[in-house]
């Protein structure tokens, strides 16, 4: 079974803090994704990566950056957290093009 893990289930941070969310997958997938999920808005793609050190912006990249130094690990960085970044963050990975994406358990981030 594909396993996607995220470093934290819950995080509480202060406005202005730098926040790191980590995601690890164990299936040697090339593609990894970061989403945020908000009530009434569904899931929205923040960034994705199709190979080590390769990344592309998704639909809502503002205020976020990412890092992929190793194939199995994809990090989402909030350079200076703001209250409007309070959300559920979901990481996903995918192998072949048409395959489904496999999701991690999610990190619920609260920015005070």
């Amino acid at each position: 079974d594909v396993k996607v893990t995220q470093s934290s289930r819950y995080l509480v941070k202060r406005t202005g803090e730098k926040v790191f969310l980590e995601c690890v997958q164990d299936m040697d997938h090339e593609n990894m994704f970061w989403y945020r999920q908000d009530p009434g808005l569904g899931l929205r793609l923040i960034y994705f990566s199709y190979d080590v050190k390769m990344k592309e912006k998704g639909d809502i990249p503002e205020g976020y950056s990412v890092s992929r130094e190793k194939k199995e690990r994809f990090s989402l960085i909030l350079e200076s957290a703001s209250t409007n970044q309070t959300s559920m963050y979901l990481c996903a990975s995918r192998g072949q093009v048409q395959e489904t994406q496999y999701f991690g358990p999610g990190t619920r981030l609260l920015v005070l």
Partner: protein
Amino acid sequence: ELKVEQNPLFLSMQEGKNYTIYCNYSTTSDRLYWYRQDPGKSLESLFVLLSNGAVKQEGRLMASLDTKARLSTLHITAAVHDLSATYFCAVGYGGATNKLIFGTGTLLAVQP
């Protein structure tokens, strides 16, 4: 701009009844995915539909895809309480990158 619309947004149904969730999308795609999300949990892949006329069934759920109408349906047969969850459809776009645009989800509550 690719848009994905699900309806209904909320569905309350009695056990034993049948119902259909609809997923309409605004541009050409032949990749459609259905996911289930339980409260506080991550997304679980249900179906992958990759061609016009594709039909897949698992237990009491059946999904179909009509690419000409840009419509997918998720049919629930003889609902049981365990099917209570939020169901998302997602459409693949972007060629080889196969990013996903998600619908806003349908919250299904099956009442005894």
